């Protein structure tokens, strides 16, 4: 700000094409602020190295932004010598050197370190409460080994790290406790087996005990992520006693404002809601559904959409009652936008959720109509990528199966029939069968109105007859049979007389402008 006049003076000497001096200045100031921020962040991240190591650390002192190389790193031999020595100082030096190797971006030497037999040493260092620097380096090194393949994680576990890490959770040194959280997250993330081993060792109460109002955000992020891994994986699902223990804290974390915490908490919910309706019930009973819907539409937190949408998708795959909680929470106001989302995966998941709501009772189907879910559905059928179209087709079929005649008529009116007919040329056999099922259902609706002839004409007009006839020659047996049945029932001349039995059609007032419009475009 004090330099304003000086800058203006300099700028006045320049011939800038349409550049506003004030804007240029603003740009410059914001750029230097950004540069200072970037510089500060770089140094902040390097603080760990400064505080914990009493040895000269090249990275901490260097203003160089892009170098992560160490000056004279210890060789593997030297590391082994140090770690296996009896001197605390050497052990710490060796451990730190190992940790740095294990933290490098490209090909950290996990196997080498393991094969050098250093793991049992590292694990023994974990219990040295009087040597926090050593504890920390060992914890960090083991964390990174556990971040590898299942085999790597297995090595860590088999050397007895689990109980040591769980004890470390209670460490008064926050950074050490946090490192233990991280390591345990990696072990839990390996799969259901180790996840349940951790649960058996009472990891959950130890973790939950670390959540308090002054817990720093960074710590909470790691903790939430570790909790989510304890909720993760199937065959088997985590024991329900463990789930019930974790849920209250997860709900709490879902009301935090940090986006990483929210994202991981949401993923945890998505894992917990995946499964049978009893599991869904446990989640729904917490009353979290409105918050999930809120997070789905949170404009700033685009990272939230996927896990929140997945959670809701899981919930509406449950009972009608469970689905109703989502509808009551306003999901139908959010879905249309997500069905038009720029990310194909979001569109697909939204269509999937819609298809499950359409598998519900006709009063829920009615809400789909009133809340304007049909136009985006038709758009997805026409313009979505294939995975999205596949889900959208399910939505149509479920709709035609559970809907009233009126509702089905409406579906046809908005263009869904035309759209699914276009999709009859896909290669996916299942999709073709689902579409043929939908067409069959629509004919059944027409039968109730005595309008099958009209529908036949409409389908023919839309090119459906040609496609269905071609499908009679399809390789797949089920497709050929379904197509053939449709043709025989509704498109065969021999049947026209039977249809005409419903000639009371003329007496019906349903030949009203409304219904006539049904099969006219």
């Amino acid at each position, binding site marked *: 700000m004090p330099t304003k006049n000086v800058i203006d003076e300099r700028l006045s000497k320049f011939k800038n094409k349409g550049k506003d001096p004030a804007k240029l200045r603003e740009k410059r100031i914001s750029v230097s602020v950004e540069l200072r921020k970037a510089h500060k962040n770089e140094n902040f991240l390097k603080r760990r190295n400064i505080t914990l190591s009493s040895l000269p650390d090249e990275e901490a002192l260097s*203003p160089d932004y892009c170098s992560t190389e160490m000056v004279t790193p210890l060789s593997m031999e030297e590391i082994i010598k140090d770690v296996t020595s009896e001197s605390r100082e050497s052990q710490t030096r060796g451990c730190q050197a190992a940790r740095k190797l294990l933290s490098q971006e490209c090909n950290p030497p996990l196997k080498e370190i393991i094969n050098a037999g250093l793991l049992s040493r590292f694990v023994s260092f974990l219990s040295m409460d009087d040597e926090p620097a050593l504890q920390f380096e060992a914890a960090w090194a083991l964390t990174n080994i556990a971040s590898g393949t299942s085999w790597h994680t297995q090595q860590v576990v088999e050397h007895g790290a689990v109980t040591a890490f769980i004890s470390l959770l209670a460490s008064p040194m926050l950074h050490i406790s946090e490192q233990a959280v991280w390591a345990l997250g990696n072990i839990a993330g*390996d799969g259901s087996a180790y996840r349940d081993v951790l649960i058996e060792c009472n990891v959950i109460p130890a973790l939950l005990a670390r959540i308090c109002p002054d817990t720093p955000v960074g710590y909470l992020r790691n903790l939430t992520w570790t909790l989510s891994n304890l909720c993760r994986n199937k065959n088997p699902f985590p024991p329900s006693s463990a789930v019930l223990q974790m849920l209250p804290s997860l709900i709490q974390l879902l009301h935090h404002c940090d986006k990483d915490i929210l994202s991981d908490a949401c993923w945890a919910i998505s894992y917990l809601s995946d499964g049978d309706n009893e599991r869904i019930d446990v989640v729904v009973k917490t009353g979290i559904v409105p918050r999930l819907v809120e997070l789905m539409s949170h404009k700033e937190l685009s990272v939230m959409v996927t896990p929140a949408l997945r959670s809701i998708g899981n919930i509406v795959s449950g009972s009608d009652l469970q689905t109703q909680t989502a509808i009551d929470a306003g999901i139908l106001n959010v879905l249309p936008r997500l069905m038009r989302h720029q990310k194909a995966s979001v569109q697909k998941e939204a269509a999937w959720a819609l298809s499950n709501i359409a598998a519900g009772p006709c009063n829920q189907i009615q809400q789909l109509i009133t809340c304007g879910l049909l136009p985006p559905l038709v758009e997805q059928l026409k313009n979505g990528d294939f995975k999205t179209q596949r889900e959208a087709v399910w939505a149509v079929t479920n709709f035609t199966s559970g809907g009233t005649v*009126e509702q089905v008529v409406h579906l046809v009116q908005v263009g869904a029939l035309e759209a699914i007919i276009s999709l009859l040329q896909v290669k996916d056999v299942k999709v073709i069968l689902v579409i043929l099922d939908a067409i069959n259902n629509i004919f059944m609706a027409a039968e109730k109105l005595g309008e099958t002839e009209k529908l036949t004409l409409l389908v023919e007009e839309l090119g459906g007859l040609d496609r269905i006839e071609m499908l009679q020659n399809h390789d797949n047996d089920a497709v050929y049979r379904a197509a053939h049945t449709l043709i025989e029932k509704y498109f065969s001349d021999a049947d026209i007389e039977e249809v005409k039995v419903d000639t009371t059609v003329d007496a019906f007032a349903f030949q009203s402008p409304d219904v006539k419009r049904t099969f006219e475009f």
Partner: protein
Amino acid sequence: MGKKQNTKTKKDAQDTQDEPEEFVVEKVLDQLAWDTCPLLADNTWEPEENLDCPELISAFLEAQKNVKEKPAPVKRKASTDEPETESKKKDVAEKPRGFARNLEPERIIGATDSSGELMFLMKWKDSDEADLVPAREANTRCPQVVISFYEERLTWHSCPEDEAQ
């Protein structure tokens, strides 16, 4: 006093409304043919026998029925073909920086060579955190972004000034 006057006018209004009432009933009946009249579901409406259009009513009732008298379609559970979040994470105190973050470059917002080599401050798509990338990397990975940066700052003048600083 006001009250009296009010009741009087109310009464008047009611009197005139007696006639329209009948008219409205017929109109609603006509409506039955075109719309699905929800009033029929109401108990306060007249019983079926008083309406002389049984076909209309049965047609209406048919329309309210489900298309299929069979068990409702089964809901489909999640298919996990979507990559979720990472199950394991390596702890690197130095977080991936620059292009290693695998984000798409949006635009360059500054440049500096205080570290000895020319670096660009890169704003990435879908992220608030800008960070520094070496110019030589940016020149090959996103040349158009680099060109835009330079073009935005092109000036024609007599004094040689470093625009970027």
